[in-house]
């Protein structure tokens, strides 16, 4: 079982990284897996989740020679395949201006310390850091502009009730620009507890956009740790569309390391029967003249549980900060739950910050209006849900990815009302 007494630290990386990992393990051993009395995991009982499912460390296969890679309705600039968190060079195609190295190659002492320093006492992230297998470092060279999205396909193939963790780095060089689309798949019928750590670095004036399509099957119990450290005048965006998994937690952290940065976090989370989807975000405004814009929209059906907890932190020196945060939710049934907890922590005095949170239901007047025009009730509800989700799609500048996410949501909404 995955408990504080059994885990082993992964032995890779430079001395500083190993020391950091040892500290993470010590922290985890001291705190153990969080229960609901831990403020960070107030709505997600990780200890119970692990105990009830008996997740444990197992021997993982690290290579495969055959995988079916999903066909996308549009061209990509390249494909990166991860198998149980391990990079598969033979199955991958890299676009010009990019290379893949072991994660440790992109983590010198400084960057490792900066990004891995536990900002909050999070034993789950400590566990992930301590145990993560060395994943890949995707390096996007200076001035490289990827015109088409780069696909990262992650396949999990483990025995039932396995726990696995991997750590990856994405580094966009100065003035580089790239969109990365993440897709996931797994072997059928085998439950797994996966933690993926994604450490992103955006160089000066670089743009890095991550799109994570989280539509795994019910076997998936997943915690993602997305972190970005942004150099001056760079843009980082993350868009997640969570429809799958029995349990999903997104820990998102973006921090500015220079002036004039922009951060955009977009999330759509749609828990339905038996699903639990939790988003925890942190945007750290540490420098002046930076902007952040955050929109999370939840649609909870059946007995689904959705959570948004977002914090915007503005340091004393981060004058002229513009920070927006919004969380809007729709409940589709009496049994559905949404917990929303927006937080602002501001130490600068010349800033524009706003946050808002609303939770409601679909407008019955609108539904009747559409029905009176001959639109079936299920179709009317679907149209309203698409309209609700559209605010998130509108923020996706890549047209093909936007359409891809829309189609996924449309299928999800159609499934919600099928045979009703």
């Amino acid at each position, binding site marked *: 079982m995955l408990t504080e007494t059994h885990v082993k630290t992964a032995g890779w990386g430079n001395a500083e990284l190993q020391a950091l990992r040892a500290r993470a393990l010590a922290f985890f051993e001291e705190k153990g897996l969080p229960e609901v009395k831990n403020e960070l995991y107030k709505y997600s009982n990780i200890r119970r989740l692990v105990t009830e499912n008996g997740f444990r460390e197992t021997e993982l296969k690290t290579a495969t020679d055959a995988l079916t890679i999903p066909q996308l309705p549009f061209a990509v600039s390249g494909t990166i395949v991860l198998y149980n968190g391990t990079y598969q060079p033979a199955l991958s195609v890299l676009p010009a201006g990019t290379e893949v190295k072991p994660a440790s190659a992109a983590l010198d002492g400084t960057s490792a310390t900066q990004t891995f320093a536990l900002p909050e006492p999070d034993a789950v992230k400590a566990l992930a850091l301590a145990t993560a297998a060395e994943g890949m470092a995707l390096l996007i060279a200076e001035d490289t502009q990827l015109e088409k999205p780069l696909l990262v396909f992650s396949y999990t193939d483990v025995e039932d009730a396995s726990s696995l963790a991997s750590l990856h780095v994405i580094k966009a060089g100065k003035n580089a620009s790239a969109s990365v689309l993440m897709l996931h798949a797994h072997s059928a019928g085998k439950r797994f507890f996966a933690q993926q750590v994604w450490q992103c670095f955006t160089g000066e004036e670089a743009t890095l956009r991550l799109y994570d399509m989280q539509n795994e099957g019910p076997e998936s119990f997943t915690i993602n740790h997305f972190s970005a450290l942004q150099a001056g005048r760079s843009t980082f965006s993350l868009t997640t569309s969570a429809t799958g998994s029995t349990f999903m937690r997104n820990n998102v952290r973006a921090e500015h390391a220079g002036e004039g940065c922009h951060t955009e976090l977009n999330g759509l989370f749609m828990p339905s029967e038996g699903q639990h989807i939790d988003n925890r975000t942190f945007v750290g405004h540490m420098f002046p003249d930076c902007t952040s814009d955050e929109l999370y929209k939840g649609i909870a059906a059946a007995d689904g549980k959705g959570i948004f907890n977002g914090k915007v932190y503005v340091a004393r020196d981060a004058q002229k900060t513009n920070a927006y945060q919004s969380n809007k939710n729709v409940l589709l049934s009496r049994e559905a739950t949404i917990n929303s907890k927006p937080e602002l922590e501001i130490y600068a005095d010349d800033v524009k910050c706003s946050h808002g949170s609303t939770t409601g239901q679909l*407008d019955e*007047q*609108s539904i*009747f*209006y*559409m*029905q*009176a*025009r*001959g*639109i*079936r*009730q299920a*179709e009317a509800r679907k*149209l*309203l849900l*698409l*309209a*609700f989700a*559209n*605010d998130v799609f509108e923020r996706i500048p890549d047209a093909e990815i936007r359409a891809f996410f829309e189609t996924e949501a449309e299928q999800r909404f159609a499934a919600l009302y099928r045979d009703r």
Partner: protein
Amino acid sequence: MLTIKNLHASINGKEILKGINLEIAAGEVHAIMGPNGSGKSTLSAVLAGKEDYEITQGEVIFRGKDLLELSPEERAGEGIFLAFQYPVEIPGVSMTNFMRTAVNEVREYRGLEALDAKAFLALSKEKQALVELDKKLAGRSVNEGFSGGEKKRNEIYQMAMLNPYLSILDETDSGLDIDALRIVSEGVNKLKSAENAFLVITHYQRLLDYIVPDFVHVLYDGRIVKTGPKELALELEDKGYDHIKKEVEA
């Protein structure tokens, strides 16, 4: 086309319609007038199938079918159209997407093939012209940011697109200036045929100068208390509803 017999309806236990009887044949225009609170809007909502109302007695037969057994969308498919007194704004749903979905859902119900994008646009253009609806509104969300007049013209445009047998206009004249009233009325008059019928619900006689009714019914306290030719509307305008109230109570 439509036969309403002894229709009783209530909301939250309060009876609003207390025995409506009404017969509408194809090719006819009927006007229902009455003071505030007489049940005019309830009647239109009940015919369109709004769920908030409980039908306690009576029956409604529309083109041979028991209307009260049908869902609102099935009623629309059968050919009932309600032009709303207060058209609903639906942020995020574009007019074009809404209308194309509606047209094709109704066509599917009627056993017709869906219109492709080109055919839909051609039809839409023709019907927009009928009520002088600004083309740019098609790109907006349903009724969002429309002026009062645009909303009502939009209702008639939708009516024209769906080609119903029975159109119910619920106080379509409210909030309209003379020009908009004329445009809306001309639209309705162009759509009039021997195959369809109109039920025009209004508070004032004004609209009936433009859409000339074959019958005028006075609704009071949930019942039709008087029926007459179009001149009845003028009489009401002249003498007011108090006159009718006294007559009824006498």
